[in-house]
């Protein structure tokens, strides 16, 4: 693939998948945040009607749900890398990774609830 040399290796793909997931989600997260900034700049001062109105749009709800999904996946890869680097004991690492995974799933569920209760 093009100029990304690391994608030309012949490995099983687990590390590659996570690395790619982190990058792809990063791009989407940035695009979403930029779009949000533009929205905020356009609607100064921001009142409840404009804010909740925007989140009532189906497209915005969907894009926002994807944002939180991408954020959870992006955070998962990052935090898991940190745990892998500093928590050498397999048992403790598994416990912490499980807590992080459940925590992120809970955040995602909360985000979906917030978005669809508008």
């Amino acid at each position: 693939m093009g100029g990304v040399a690391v994608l030309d290796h012949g490995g099983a793909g687990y590390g590659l998948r996570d690395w790619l997931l982190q990058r792809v989600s990063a791009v989407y997260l940035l695009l979403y945040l930029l779009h949000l900034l533009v929205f905020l700049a356009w609607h100064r001062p921001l009142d409840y009607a404009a804010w909740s109105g925007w989140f009532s749009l189906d497209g915005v709800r969907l894009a926002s749900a994807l944002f939180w999904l991408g954020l959870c996946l992006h955070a998962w890869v990052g935090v898991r890398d940190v745990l892998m680097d500093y928590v050498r004991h397999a048992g403790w690492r598994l416990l912490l990774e499980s807590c992080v995974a459940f925590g992120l799933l809970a955040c995602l569920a909360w985000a979906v609830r917030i978005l669809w209760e508008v």
Partner: protein
Amino acid sequence: MKNRRPVWFSPLSISLPIGGVVSLLHRLSGVFLFLLLPLFLYLLQESLASPQRYLAIAAQLGGWLKFCLILLGWVVLHHVLAGVRLMLMDIGIGKELPTARRSAWMVLILALPLLAAWGGWLC
């Protein structure tokens, strides 16, 4: 028998190259943002719940919330700028040492005016 006990040294005694500093801050900012996820969700929830709760949150913007958002602004800015630098290096842009050093400085320096703009916007 050779002494195999670990040697302790203060981590602060290591002087990291600038790329190392940016990388460390990138990692720290990421962990920090992860830990604050519930706060972001709480703010989103309250701001959308009802006009009254929206106003309650907006009222906080005069106090602790503004300070938090400015601090978070730097955290997000650094994490994003450092991340963009890393992704450019992924596709081969700026991976030579002199360029990498310059881009590391740029990440740190560029964050300041952007943060000032963000702070100004909040106020």
